[in-house]
């Protein structure tokens, strides 16, 4: 049997102050082959994501972690005490390190102005509660799209700062500089375990090109 490529499932951070709802969303996500972390507040979500205090533009490694957390999507309830889902969304979009992570808002209230406000602020999707299993299939496309966006942002950064600052341990970054700006798949070595990178900027980098060359069979199945 051929060596199986151990690909990490996508990691979703779910934020909801209601315990029964947290239990449900966790189950929904796990059933759909996501790795899940749940927190009960926006503040805890930001802590988990590596942001501390009011200054959302500073990204800090969580002290107890060697590797920065790798979150591919954030799904949050809208109505929460203290920091609402909308407030959390804003903080995420204001953060240079987090802005590319897709955010989905959940709410039990169907209020068009609320929905529009969230979408305008950059939310990728709005789920009406109770969230269903069928909603889960809408998540992966947002993750895939954001990875393309990330790829382009990273390319821009690479071009601006040259390869000097690009001293990450991720082997795909060390490919010769004349190939960085292209998406020619043959110039990227396949990176089997995506969350093994210790570098903060590359931790979330999963080159879109990799997805194009790797067969979809190695991707986690989503129901």
């Amino acid at each position, binding site marked *: 049997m051929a060596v199986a490529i151990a690909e990490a499932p996508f990691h979703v951070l779910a934020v909801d102050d*209601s*315990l*029964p*709802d947290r*239990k*449900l969303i966790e*189950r*929904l996500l*796990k*059933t759909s082959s996501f790795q899940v972390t749940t927190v009960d507040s926006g503040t805890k979500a930001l802590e988990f994501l590596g942001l501390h205090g009011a200054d959302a533009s500073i990204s800090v490694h969580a002290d107890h972690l060697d590797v920065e957390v790798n979150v591919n999507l954030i799904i949050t309830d809208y*109505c929460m005490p203290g920091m609402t889902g909308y407030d959390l969304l804003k903080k995420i979009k204001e953060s240079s390190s987090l802005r590319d992570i897709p955010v989905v808002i959940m709410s*039990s*209230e169907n209020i068009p102005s609320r929905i529009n406000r969230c979408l305008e602020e950059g939310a990728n999707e709005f789920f009406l*509660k*109770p969230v*269903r*299993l069928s909603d889960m299939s809408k998540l992966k496309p947002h993750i895939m799209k954001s990875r393309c966006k990330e790829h382009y942002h990273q390319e821009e950064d690479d071009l601006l700062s040259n390869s000097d600052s690009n001293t990450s341990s991720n082997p795909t970054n060390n490919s010769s500089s004349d190939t960085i700006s292209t998406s020619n798949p043959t110039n990227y070595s396949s990176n089997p375990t995506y969350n093994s990178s210790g570098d903060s900027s590359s931790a979330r980098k999963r080159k879109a090109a990799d997805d194009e060359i790797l067969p979809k069979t190695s991707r986690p199945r989503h129901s």
Partner: protein
Amino acid sequence: MDYSNLRRQAASMKKVLFDQGHLDEQFRQVEDLQDEASPNFVEEVVVVFFKDSGRLISNLEQALEKYPRDFNRWDAYMQQLKGSCSSIGASRMKNECMSFRDNCGKGNVEGCMGCLQKLKREHAILRQKLESYFQLLRQAGPAGAATRPVM
């Protein structure tokens, strides 16, 4: 022990809960999430729900006393409770939550109090019925508990 009979009883108990409007389609959605990896998921969620909703009801009762006629506050509590009821498929409870909120909107204190009493009653009824249901499932044997509930 006639396990198939016990399972039939459990199924019929559940059917009654649906027919009488205690539970709605959302409960089936929750059941669909139960599998070999999470064989007691439904009961676990239900237990969490009753604990959580009990706490919310208690908070609301305190708020009714401590903050008279504070309809915005009362409504906010009830919104939380309605959300949980909705997530689990607790249909009658959800309806009482909605009536309560209507009464808040109208500034009708007595109406709110009446709804709260009904809500507490429905809470107790549903809790007792579901406890019996899960107990029956457990008696029906590990196979009965671990697999998808019989419909």
